[in-house]
């Protein structure tokens, strides 16, 4: 019926880039100190930061991935949304406020607070980089598939060029705007994304007389292969005992991963107080929850109106369900708008990840390990962060070109598994367990990281099956695609064993300071007034 128009898509996206660049340049005028560049002067309000968190969190995997998974696999796709949402309660109840009160710029600030600084900071920076890198790869790989669909660029060379352009834009945002500019990009993108999804949701529901049951029925009618199974669980993960266990493992990684994602944790430093950090999580929970309810309608709507066959035939397969639904509903203009939003999503998330990884390098490794704290808060810290952002940007462009076509959901689940195993145990232990010490932190971070990555390398996701990264060789020894069910308990156990088996005593003075500060907010970093 309708045809996608690449020129229209590019124009709408171009307008978005111009507007955000303008905002970023304006926001950067007050960026002077390290706290400005790395934590936006801690001057955002709770609601603003909450919207930005939603922007950071609702990545292309959330939007395109979940809508596509629901369109093709029905109910099993819905389970992703639930895990991604419930996970926020861990962040709200156990992490956000205490972290805001004790840290400054990075996750390493909190983890090393009462430990020996250099080894723990090095470990925290290592796992921050690892999580950010997997997450970055997923976003950049997704950009390639999206481009194929939206701009009609199917050649590998053309897609590589677009990935490079996306990467270059992201580097520009981070270099110019720092955390403040990046936060504004997240806010603009989150508003556009949620508004776009809301319009499409109302539109789809309107077609079925605002009757959810009618929509579900139409999705079933349009999916002759899956049929009624589309509405119940098990279509994707219910086939064998192993795949069921894999699902359980994924569910654990999703619910425990969020509160260990460094780019989410870093957002809590952009507000002035712990109370604002709490408000921002509350805003984020409502926005993210409502958005996932929209994706449920969009997913089944794509199934009903576009159909699984047409989605599977499109370049980008499941990821094209939401854009194809937009084309079906509102023609090329709505597709252009949704396409621009999807691009903006990738761009904004990539910028958020880049500033997190570069902050961790500049603050944890450069300022606190190499310069032993002497360069903290100096201009050189910002300079190193900027240089690191360029390096990370270039690496992720290269990685994105190589990973183009890989399964996005797999790469994101990988990042969640690493975050849940290497970061969350150490965060919780250092906030709540008095006796926890340096050796426990190191065992848990490095052990969790090593176990997770080893199991992933040995998993069927990497080798041995038709959907693996390497199809022709088979070195898979571990049966599950997601390592969470093993790696998360192991990391908690290692943190415990590392602590009780070492003779080192936790520093009682630092423990007292950390506990009092984390609960009362005394001595916490203040907002900067300009």
């Amino acid at each position: 019926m309708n045809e996608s128009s690449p020129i229209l898509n590019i124009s709408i996206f171009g307008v978005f880039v111009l507007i955000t660049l303008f905002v970023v340049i304006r926001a950067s005028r007050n960026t002077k100190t390290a706290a400005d560049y790395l934590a936006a002067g801690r001057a955002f309000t709770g609601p603003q930061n909450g919207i930005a968190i939603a922007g950071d969190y609702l990545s292309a995997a959330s939007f395109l991935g979940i809508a596509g998974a629901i369109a093709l696999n029905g109910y099993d796709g819905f389970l992703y949304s639930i895990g991604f949402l419930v996970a926020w309660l861990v962040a709200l109840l156990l992490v956000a406020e205490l972290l805001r009160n004790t840290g400054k710029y990075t996750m390493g600030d909190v983890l090393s607070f009462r430990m020996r600084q250099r080894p723990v900071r090095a470990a925290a920076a290592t796992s921050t980089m690892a999580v950010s890198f997997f997450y970055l790869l997923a976003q950049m790989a997704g950009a390639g598939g999206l481009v194929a669909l939206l701009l009609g660029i199917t050649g590998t060379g053309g897609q590589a060029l677009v990935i490079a352009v996306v990467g270059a834009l992201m580097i520009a945002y981070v270099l110019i705007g720092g955390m403040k500019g990046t936060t504004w990009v997240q806010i603009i993108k989150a508003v556009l994304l949620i508004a776009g999804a809301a319009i499409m949701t109302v539109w789809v529901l309107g077609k079925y007389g605002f009757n959810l049951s009618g929509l579900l029925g139409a999705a079933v009618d349009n999916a002759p292969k899956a049929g009624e199974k589309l509405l119940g669980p098990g279509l994707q993960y219910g086939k064998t005992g192993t795949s069921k266990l894999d699902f359980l493992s994924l569910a654990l990684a999703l619910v425990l991963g969020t509160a260990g994602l460094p780019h989410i944790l870093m957002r809590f430093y952009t507000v002035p107080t712990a109370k604002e950090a709490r408000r921002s999580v509350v805003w984020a929970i409502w926005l993210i929850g409502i958005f996932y309810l929209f994706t449920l309608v969009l997913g089944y709507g794509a199934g009903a109106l576009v159909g699984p066959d047409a989605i599977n035939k499109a370049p980008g397969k499941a990821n094209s369900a939401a854009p194809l639904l937009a084309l079906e509903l509102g023609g090329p203009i709505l597709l252009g708008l949704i396409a621009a939003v999807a691009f903006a999503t990738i761009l904004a998330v990539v910028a958020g990840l880049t500033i997190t990884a570069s902050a961790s390098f500049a603050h944890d490794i450069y300022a606190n390990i190499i310069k032993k704290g002497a360069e903290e808060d100096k201009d050189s810290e910002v300079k190193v962060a900027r240089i690191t952002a360029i390096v990370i940007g270039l690496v992720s462009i290269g990685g994105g070109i190589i990973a183009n076509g890989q399964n996005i959901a797999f790469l994101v689940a990988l990042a969640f598994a690493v975050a849940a195993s290497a970061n969350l145990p150490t965060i919780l232990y250092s906030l709540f367990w008095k006796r926890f010490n340096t050796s426990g932190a190191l065992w848990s971070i490095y052990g969790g990281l090593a176990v997770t990555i080893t199991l992933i390398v040995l998993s069927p996701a990497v080798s041995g099956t038709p959907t693996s990264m390497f199809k022709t060789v088979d070195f898979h020894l571990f049966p599950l695609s997601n390592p969470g069910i093993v790696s998360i308990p192991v990391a908690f156990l290692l943190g415990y064993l590392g602590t009780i088996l070492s003779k080192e005593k936790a520093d009682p003075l630092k423990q007292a300071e950390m506990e009092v500060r984390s609960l009362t907010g005394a001595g916490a970093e203040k907002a900067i007034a300009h």
Partner: protein
Amino acid sequence: MSTVEHTPSESADAQKWVDVQASDDFAQLKHRLRKFVFPVSGLFLAWYLLYVLLADYAHGFMATKVVGNINVGLIFGLLQFVSTFVITTLYVRHANKNLDPLAEKLRGEIEGDGK
């Protein structure tokens, strides 16, 4: 600055934190926080796990239709959204009423002594 290695002035300062940590007000604040967040965390994780296990191993039950095409699984899934929103609201109310005033009082005491 607490994020760097110990300095002499900090060691002199350190006793202050230990004193506050040992105070009744602080014990009360810590108790109020933990009394809420630990049980509630256990509860929502158990509720989530129950849901995941049902979706994973009780396909027939979850696919039972209730109204039209709306089945048990969908209702369970939507209830996870509801419980998340409810817990969020309850925690905010608890924190505003029972945690913030005490935390602010302690903070005032600590920061008021010429730091």
